[in-house]
């Protein structure tokens, strides 16, 4: 044992004596603090475990649950993103539809529907656009 260690342990013996002469109120407050702390132990851990293998069980369980949690989070995110994409596409299609019908309703006079030439042009135009 070197000089520092020897001095350290001698100091320790003297300091330990001070622990017995602590104020009664302090000791009782420390006891209360301990009880409060114990009531908060392992709030996030569930299930009855057998002493000794509890930690191994804990490790497995926590690894499984943390993986499952991550997987769920990723799944929720991808479902959300896909939903948002489809919803956007649907809304956009609806908007185009409204614009198209407004354009057609505004710019085409009702007499055009009676015009044979217009029908012929419409058919030609749709054929050429299909090709």
């Amino acid at each position, binding site marked *: 044992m070197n*000089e*520092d*260690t020897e*001095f*350290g*342990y*001698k*100091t*320790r013996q*003297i*300091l*330990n*004596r*001070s*622990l017995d*002469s*602590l*104020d009664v109120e*302090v*000791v009782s*407050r*420390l*006891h209360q*603090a*301990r009880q*409060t*702390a*114990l009531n*908060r*132990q*392992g*709030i996030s*851990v*569930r*299930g*009855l*475990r*057998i*002493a000794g293998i*509890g*930690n191994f069980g*804990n490790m497995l369980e926590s690894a499984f649950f943390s993986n499952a949690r991550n997987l769920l989070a990723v799944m929720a995110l991808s479902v959300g993103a896909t939903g948002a994409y489809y919803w956007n596409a649907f809304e956009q299609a609806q908007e185009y539809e409204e614009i198209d019908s407004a354009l057609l309703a505004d710019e085409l006079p009702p007499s055009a529907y009676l015009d044979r030439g217009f029908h012929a042009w419409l058919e030609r135009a749709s054929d050429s656009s299909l090709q």
Partner: protein
Amino acid sequence: MQEYTLSSRFELSNFLASIERRAFKQAMFAIRNEETALDIVQDAMMRLAEKYGTRPATEWPMLFQRILQNAIRDSYRRSKVRSMWTTLLSSISPNDDEDADPLETIEAENGSAGLATPHQQLERSQLLATIEKEIEKLPPRQREAFLMRYWEEMDITETAEAMGCSAGSVKTHCSRASHTLAVALRAKGIEL
């Protein structure tokens, strides 16, 4: 269904009971205020139980010391800022505490210091008081290392981990603390 094993609760209870008084004294050495020291110990115990209560019991001493030292440092910083603002504000505002009785303060201080020591133990308590005072005077990191190594009986690796420094630094802090304490005690005619 139960939220933790009974054995781990029992183990944690024993562990906390074994360290709570030393933890309080450690906080007192650094903060020198009983109320704050008690709050710090309670906070540290709650954090250990909440976050690390299910960890292996062998890890608790190091984890508890890390939490405790961080809490002491935080409290020290906060009190420094508070005292800076108090000094600033009291220099601006007029002194309206003229009716305060200085004897009350002295009485309260005597009460908390626990001076009612039996005559037979006077010498012993004087030695203890001297050592405690010299420990208070140590630089914080030296005090932390010294108390963890010798009072908490943690090894160098554990102490280094709790302090967030290298093993070499722990050795240096401990050696310097021992040397400073020994010199200070020798100057007062005390040889351990």
